[in-house]
């Protein structure tokens, strides 16, 4: 049946791909089929793996679809993996959080927020490809500006930056409209804290 076949095709592609495959890419690959068919088929495939007992399910991550193993069985899967854990230390997580929520952001801004030198952490995050240099800020000194990558989204299972856990408001700060604290080095031409356009792009 044509329909069954499409389901199988989509499954195969998603299985074979080490990276998440976006809907657009699927449509481009499967030019014999139209978008509606593909969209519907994708939903059916997704449903097949919805059972919480299954070994893996289909998730939308970093703007694409990917099979991901069930966390419930992580202990067993980990036996495949060498015992050491690629853990992220607190400095890395803090710096990542700042970059994720505040991108584009400069090193000086990061260091102001953390209160410590962040050169080492930044280099480590760059090496891990969790952050990348977006360009240079148009101010004296032309400092580099940083943002998160697609790998960052994939690592944490996020569909996009908007899916980041909401930044908790501890209490309203001095600025009554709840704006974020202006940083001393901020460009006068204000920028969004979490601009919609800042989708982490592939390389």
């Amino acid at each position: 049946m044509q329909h069954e076949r499409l389901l199988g095709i989509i499954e195969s592609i998603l299985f074979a791909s080490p990276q998440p495959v976006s809907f657009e890419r699927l449509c481009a690959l499967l030019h014999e089929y139209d978008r509606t068919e593909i969209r519907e088929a994708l939903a059916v495939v997704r449903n097949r793996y919805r059972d919480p007992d299954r070994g893996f399910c289909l998730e939308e991550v970093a703007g694409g679809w990917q099979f991901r193993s069930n966390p419930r069985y992580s202990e067993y899967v980990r036996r495949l993996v060498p015992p050491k854990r690629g853990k992220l230390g607190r400095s890395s997580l803090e710096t990542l959080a700042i970059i994720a929520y505040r991108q584009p952001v400069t090193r000086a801004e990061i260091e102001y927020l953390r209160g410590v030198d962040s050169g080492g952490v930044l280099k480590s995050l760059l090496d891990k490809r969790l952050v990348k240099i977006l360009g240079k800020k148009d101010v004296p000194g032309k400092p580099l500006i940083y943002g998160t990558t697609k790998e960052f989204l994939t690592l944490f299972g996020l569909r996009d930056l908007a899916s980041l856990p909401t930044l908790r408001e501890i209490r309203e700060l001095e600025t009554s409209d709840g704006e974020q604290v202006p940083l001393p080095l901020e460009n006068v031409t204000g920028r969004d804290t979490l601009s919609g356009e800042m989708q982490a792009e592939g390389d």
Partner: protein
Amino acid sequence: MDLTGILPGDDSSHGYSVRLELFEGPLDLLLHLIRKNEVDIYNIPISEITRQYLEYLDLMKELNLDVAGEFLVLASTLLQIKSRMLLPRTEEEGDEEGEPGEDPRAELVRRLIEYQRYREAAADLDALPRLGWDLFTRGAVEEVERQGEQIPEEVDVYLLVEAFGRLLASIPEEKLHEVGSEQYRLAERIAEIMTLLESDPFVPFSTLFPETFDRGYVIVTFLAVLELCRLRVITISQPLPFGEIWLKRSVDCAGKGPEEPHDAT
């Protein structure tokens, strides 16, 4: 933490200057003090907090820890705020209507709150199911093998520093400044502690010290415990606030870790 300069087999610990990436920085220390004193962050008793902060820096120097520049910068900021607090807020500082100038603590409070937000955000990120640990994709296993690096377990260094501070304080005055007649070797101390842990995966802190001890002994023990934490051979915990600190032997490669002792919550 980066304990560069600590090599097993080196001589006495007295000469060590340990460079720690201290507790994520001065803001982290300040938040710790604010929480510890249970004060309102919007109404920080600057005098007292400054005093404790400076005391902490002294203690860190006593324990041969390098105090990074940022800590000193914040120290002077605190002192500045403290002195401004003592002055009446004049009209010149404020706006044209004669309103008093901003509370000298305000900017610091803003920074602390902002820092706290990102700390919590970092914890939220950490809690998300992580690729390569909680779940896997095609190629993830190879990826982990490639990327997995030993990142030292974050240790509550405050607990250790405070505990050792108390120990140093308990040494009678005359002994405190004696040049140690004993030359303590870090490697030996580490080995001694490991031996204790071999027979019992849970070792209370108090058993690390004999009846009498001198300053050198405290320092070499402190460095030994830190090194063991850094190597992730042990973790430390304090189940009851201000209670006994426990050293726990970590999970070994073969299987599960030891069971928790009964009084651990």
